[in-house]
């Protein structure tokens, strides 16, 4: 597979670019923020995602989807990143669907039609602490009748208060730190004994603290096999990490483009500031880093789509590289905009906030560099 988008993928990129630029540009996100939108996204936009076919990218053709891959999902995510478009696409249509693809047909039948229609929203309840440490999951799922009783606390559950169901990772066996003994559950939002505390994050997205206090679910809620949830979780995480890396590339590119444009407009000392070599070299370095990040992300997506084992390491490379590069883009972006970059009125600050949240999502650049070292055995 050559390392660039094929014709179909390029067409998809063009239509995603046009769609998001017109339906959900940065001003759309600003409006939701100003209104104090409690969902952090518009259900109407999600519906449009369904009409565009985006929500079915990773759903198999047998289940009514497009049966495409992570490269295609990434193409949409990069445009989402560039426009800072709030949507449940990453959590629901990418990570959530990747988990459900490992689940029984009854779960697919339950959720996929709603996702395809852009109606159903899934949230991911994985993290339990401020830092992403999936193997440390302590939330308990005890056998109860023909089902399970879930107890524990989750945080950074993006759009948790607006979701129809939560994918909850819990421990049916083993101790925190072990990968065996984890099980994934699809828990309906109305389940008893579950409290969802909705919180706004720095980037105006909404995330929840979720407390499970003996939440009863029946056996049908298990995604995949009991105690063997690590494989399902790994699929969910790989999809989510590669996807957030693609979105980061969009965020970084959006910030970089804005900044380079600004260098061509702003005058000081009687010249365009883009004439100063001190700024030119930093912009050129940033360009180089963003190009490399984009290549790393595409490589990870291609390996995922080919089902290669090396996808695992490249997903971490992609998340780490995209995280660092996008972070550089937003920092340089604010600095090179000068005073105006500090104002709420200007969009560059939104890029900085989104980058921060996405970097943290499913493991930051340090976490993923650490994973690379671990996989290489040092």
């Amino acid at each position: 597979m050559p390392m660039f988008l094929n014709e179909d993928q390029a067409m998809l990129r063009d239509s995603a670019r046009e769609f998001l630029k017109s339906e959900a540009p940065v001003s759309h996100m600003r409006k939701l923020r100003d209104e104090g939108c409690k969902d952090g996204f518009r259900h109407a936009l999600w519906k449009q995602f369904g009409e565009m076919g985006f929500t079915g990218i990773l759903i198999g053709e047998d289940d009514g989807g497009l049966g495409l891959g992570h490269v295609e999902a990434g193409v949409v995510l990069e445009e989402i990143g560039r426009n800072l478009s709030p949507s449940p696409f990453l959590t629901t249509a990418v990570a959530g669907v990747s988990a459900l693809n490992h689940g029984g047909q009854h779960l697919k039948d339950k959720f996929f039609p709603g996702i395809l229609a852009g109606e159903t929203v899934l949230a991911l309840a994985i993290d339990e602490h401020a830092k992403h440490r999936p193997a440390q999951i302590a939330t308990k799922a005890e056998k109860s009748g023909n089902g399970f009783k879930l107890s524990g606390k989750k945080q950074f559950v993006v759009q948790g208060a607006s979701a129809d169901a939560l994918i909850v990772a819990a421990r049916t066996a083993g101790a925190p730190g072990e990968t065996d003994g984890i099980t994934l559950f699809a828990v309906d939002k109305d389940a008893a004994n579950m409290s969802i505390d909705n919180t706004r994050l720095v980037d105006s997205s909404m995330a929840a603290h979720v407390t499970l206090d003996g939440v009863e679910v029946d056996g049908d809620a298990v995604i995949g096999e009991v105690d063997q949830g690590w494989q399902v979780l790994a699929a969910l995480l790989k999809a989510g990490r590669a996807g957030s890396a693609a979105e980061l590339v969009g965020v970084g590119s959006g910030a970089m483009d804005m900044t380079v444009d600004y260098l061509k407009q702003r005058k000081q000392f009687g010249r365009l500031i883009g004439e100063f070599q001190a700024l030119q070299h930093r912009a050129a370095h940033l360009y180089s880093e963003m190009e490399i990040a984009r290549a790393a992300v595409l490589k990870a997506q291609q390996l995922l789509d080919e089902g290669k084992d090396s996808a695992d390491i490249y997903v971490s490379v992609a998340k780490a590289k995209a995280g660092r590069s996008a972070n550089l883009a937003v920092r340089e972006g604010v600095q090179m905009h000068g005073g105006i970059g500090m104002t709420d009125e200007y969009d560059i600050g939104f890029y900085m906030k989104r980058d921060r949240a996405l970097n943290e999502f499913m493991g930051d650049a340090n976490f993923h560099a650490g994973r690379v070292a671990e996989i290489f055995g040092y």
Partner: protein
Amino acid sequence: MSDLDQFRTEVRAWLEENCPAEMREPVRGDDDVCWGRRNWKFKNEAQKLWLDRCVAKGYTVPDWPKAYGGAGLSAAETKILRQEMARINARPPLSSFGIWMLGPALLHFGTEEQKVHYLGQIARGEIRWCQGYSEPGSGSDLVSLQTYGEDKGDHWVVNGQKIWTSYADKCDWIFCLVRTDKTNKYQGISFLLFDMETPGVTTKPIKLISGNSPFCETFFDNVVVPKHQIVGELNRGWDVAKYLLGHEREMISGGGLGDGAPSLGAQLKNSIGTNGLGQLDDGILRAELAQFDVDALAFKAMAERFGDEMKAGKGHPAQPNMMKYAGTELNKRRHELVMAGNGSDALEWESEASKGGAKARNWLRTKANSIEGGTSEVMLNVISKRILDLPGA
């Protein structure tokens, strides 16, 4: 089976049968790979056999047309050949500036006669080429070069001096930038080819901080160059030079990929030592190595993307400058970490254990990566101007 799958099967079988076992060992020194020249001293029989077989097949320059010594392979086929060679760790049968630099320029700018003559020699490893670009007063500002060729009707008489001529003392011919019009800066330079044995050519190796002398000063004292030995048009040598620099930058950028080992951190595990968890027992160095491995793998993906895009004619024409910048900076970082990871062992300069100070000398050599072929700062200038379209760059 698709045609490409079929091709892969054939190539694999051919390599299996024809690549000698000795040529599947890692490259340790410069002479482990044949550089070709008039009187190349083969290191062993296997090296000669490997070259002969590849020459016969056109595999020293697989993507060149058959008429010029290549195998006429498509981009996809060439990629497969490289993958299959990498799979068995096959050494390149022939390495040379002729292949990477002059060849592509001749393919683009040469006359049919020049192509048949010079490209054939390059493909067969008969002539080793050096590059006469930089001068003592013209480094980053290459276009200010002063070496002058005086028009004498059917020939030029060249006088001047070049510097940083790689392996000039070991080369047979030179491709050289010579001023042929003193009144026009950019359009007053011609791209000339001549024999290093021409009377008036002398070379003097320059001893570097590594203790080695891969570069020379090269002097021209009334050197006669016949008019048919020009590539491209008179006074338009800068076009050829720029085209060729693109290929040089592409080649140098490959250095960032290292020797093919996927992880520098893993490679340095023994020398650094590990703690009870099996992690490097220097936490800060481990973190630096992990960041490096991330960047190296990401750059590897970039190199693959760059290659695929260039072959498909999709990449930005100034992208080699970005690759050169990123690749050389990465390679310098790699060697800083190799030195840090090997501690005082890597300081040894002469001992047998250190193979004559190989690590230290290689580390010092890499410092030139971001200087030769255009400094990192010049690369950033080019990116600013040609890719980002920044004003006044």
